[in-house]
């Protein structure tokens, strides 16, 4: 059994920010199932906006490099290609790495496991060629392969808009992006970029079915009313060989549940400082409720700071000041998103 002060599970923006914040004052181990840190930042090739505190103006993969460098400089250790397959209420974790399996007893655990994409069921949704938008983004930006020649995107949140633009940028032809609601869900700047590539964004529209022999060959869309039901005689068929589903995400809460955290839906219930109902176990980033990378970084830092204070590794007054700053920034980020959404 190895002992560590703080075990961080997940090396995306939240986990890396937590490790960077805690590494100089505590022993920190960051476990991630992938071969490189960065989480979903690794496949983000667009420049982020916001403030310099969150690396505005840098591309996602470059932010991942910087956060990793900060975490390593702070002294955090990494266990990559390592799956955490068990987390117990006493904060004992079991890690399966490329060479061995080990058990780690942690004083504090920060769960930064991110989120999983939601599926959408419609006739034909299991056909090969139907995939999540994240899958297409991974394929195009990390592996440099197109998912097909001509596609359709379902969902106009930021993921759908950004992945649509990036598919077009990489050379795929897109028939359309369909959105069941009457307005676009994501930021207008992302919608504008997609529209300028010539891809139509069809609101109040839905995918009614996909067809094909052995793989996707067609998609049928229809106009819909406010109830989301297709309107008669508005169906149109498109020849496509891939369909990307961008229907939102839900927190990846498997380990939180295993450890006994109380959850509301998929979200572990947590204090303002991100501690769950299991003492010493924190959630940060999308695992604490789906937002975006800037909030994830801030939450990683907030959870790490609270953990350090509770361990007696950081002066309480300093810690409270840092935590208040994190919470101010989070409130600001959330306020900006409400404004952007027109709410």
């Amino acid at each position: 059994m190895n002992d560590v002060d703080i075990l961080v599970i997940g090396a995306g923006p939240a986990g890396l920010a937590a490790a960077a914040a805690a590494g100089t004052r505590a022993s920190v181990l960051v476990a991630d199932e992938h071969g490189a840190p960065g989480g979903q930042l690794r496949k983000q090739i667009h420049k982020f906006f916001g403030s310099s505190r969150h690396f505005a103006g840098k591309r996602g993969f470059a932010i991942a490099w910087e956060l990793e460098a900060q975490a390593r400089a702070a002294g955090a250790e990494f266990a990559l290609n390592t799956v955490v397959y068990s987390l117990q209420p006493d904060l004992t974790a079991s890690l399966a790495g490329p060479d061995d399996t080990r058990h780690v007893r942690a004083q504090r655990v920060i769960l930064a496991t991110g989120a999983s994409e939601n599926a959408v069921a419609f006739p034909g949704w299991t056909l090969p060629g139907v995939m999540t938008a994240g899958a297409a983004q991974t394929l195009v930006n990390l592996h440099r392969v197109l998912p097909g020649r001509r596609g359709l995107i379902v969902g106009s949140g930021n993921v759908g808009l950004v992945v649509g633009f990036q598919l077009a940028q990489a050379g795929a032809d897109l028939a359309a992006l369909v959105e069941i609601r009457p307005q676009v869900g994501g930021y207008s700047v992302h919608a504008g970029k997609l529209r300028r590539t010539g891809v139509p964004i069809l609101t109040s529209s839905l995918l009614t079915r996909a067809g094909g022999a052995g793989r996707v060959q067609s998609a049928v869309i229809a106009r819909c009313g406010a109830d989301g039901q297709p309107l008669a005689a508005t169906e149109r068929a498109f020849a496509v060989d891939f369909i990307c589903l961008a229907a939102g995400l839900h927190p990846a809460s498997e380990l939180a549940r295993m450890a006994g955290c109380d959850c509301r839906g998929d979200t572990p219930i947590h204090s303002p400082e991100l501690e769950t109902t299991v003492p010493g176990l924190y959630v940060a980033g999308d695992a604490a409720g789906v937002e975006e990378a800037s909030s994830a970084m801030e939450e990683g830092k907030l959870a790490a700071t609270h953990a350090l204070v509770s361990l007696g590794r950081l002066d309480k007054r300093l810690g409270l000041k840092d935590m208040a700053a994190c919470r101010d920034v989070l409130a600001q980020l959330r306020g900006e998103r409400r404004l952007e959404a027109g709410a």
Partner: protein
Amino acid sequence: MRIHEHPILGSLPDTHLVTITVDGRPILARSGEPIWAALMAAGIVVAHYTHTLREPRGAFCGIGRCTDCAMTVDGVPNVRTCVAPVQEGMVVETQDRLEP
């Protein structure tokens, strides 16, 4: 289809190529990439057929969660090809009725 030129990421970097066999057919793959990427580059989208209804399935989540990309690799069934890296000489088979 490989993306050889990309407006942000530039030219596809040269890398060591390996040969894998997919249902008896040799396929060139880029060293270290997941099996899925090599298959998609070759236009192969079906990973397996389901147990009861024998429906085709292909990679869905691309991140090792959903197991729709499961194939038989070097005789081992239910390998998640979206995260398992290629290796020289690997033998990949479309799985039939071996449910992940």
